[in-house]
């Protein structure tokens, strides 16, 4: 992981402030933002993938059993997946 904006010296900044590591913002834990998180009742899941399509973070992935689960490192708890799921698999619960 590279230095943050508070640590970089003027000599270490790339020419023109160019960022040469693509997608390095994925180190940022947006999961800390949420106040509610998705919980799942996979008995109802038909593996349609609509939750994965509609997630603004793009953090929903299929696990080994083929069920779609949000990566809690990034999940902001917006609730779109719960709202769009056609079979009501997902319920948003308050974070402890």
């Amino acid at each position, binding site marked *: 992981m590279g230095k943050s904006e508070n640590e970089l010296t003027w000599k270490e900044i790339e020419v023109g402030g160019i960022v040469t590591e693509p997608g390095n913002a994925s180190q940022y834990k947006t999961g800390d933002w949420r106040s509610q998180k998705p919980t799942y009742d996979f008995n109802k899941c038909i593996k349609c993938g609509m939750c994965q399509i509609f997630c603004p973070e793009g953090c929903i992935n299929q696990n080994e059993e083929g069920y779609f689960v949000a990566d809690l490192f990034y999940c*902001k708890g917006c609730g779109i997946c719960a709202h769009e799921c056609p079979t009501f698999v997902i319920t948003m619960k308050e974070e402890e």
Partner: protein
Amino acid sequence: MENCTIYVPKLITKKENFAPGHRACIGCGEALAVRLAFKAIGQNVIVVNATGCVEIFTSQMPYTSWRVPWIHTLFENTAAVASGIESARKAMVRKGIIEDKNTKIVAIGGDGATIDIGLQALSGAMERGHDFLYICFDNEAYMNTGIQRSSATPFGASTTTSPAGKESIGQFAWKKDMPGIAVAHNIPYVATANPSYPFDLMEKVKKGLEAKGPAYIQILSACPTGWGCAGELSVKIGRLAAKTGVFPLYEVENGKYRITVDFPKLLPITDYTGLQKRFRHLSPEMLEQIQQKVTEKYEEIKEKAEMSARCGQTGTEE
């Protein structure tokens, strides 16, 4: 839910060219729209981004959410920068400096950056016929700077610079018809899209990329923060924008109109406006006025589509 099937996971690429960990608001419709568009665009692209929400939440130094080459310079010049890149690569390929890998140029900007301050640059780029795709992510105000009105703000919406008050109904002008302006430039492809209809959106983005010359797509991007609704409703509100006819989904290929997602009977606009705080202040009379205008505009698009169908096949001319 039109166009969705249980085969969704197999139909679209899993690759995220727009990495999670970006700093968009919770439930951001624009982030969703960008993510879907870039699933259709792929990796062989150079992205030019205007100042605005997407640019800010994806590019805090020294990080980037982008996994494709990306450049941001200023607010109003996205189409001009894209013109420069397109011309440069054309010259460099012709002179043998780089290989022709059919790399696409995609310019993205918000409604403010496109329809207000960036209109000149976009008009110039379209007139000159540069081969690029311009996508306007339309959240209907200057959201990044705090919800100020733009010319894409719908009539009657309350924003911070067109606030509803004792002497004001909010936004006092009707939404500028930017797709119409794009069509008037005689470019090969113009479309409107909505992330609530993801397959329609992705198909249109693909068509825009393949069009030879300038292509313009305006994507309605629900903004829970600015529109005043819960984050979880972004997709639902987008869907209602289509089902009420407020934001019709159509494409124009070489001047021929086609409605791509049509509804036998439009829902009343109050189904849409009722969910958003920015319309909460509107009187029944105002709402009726808006309803009439929405119906009228939708009929206009339908007529154009019918006329295009009567005049012959739609489709890109080779």
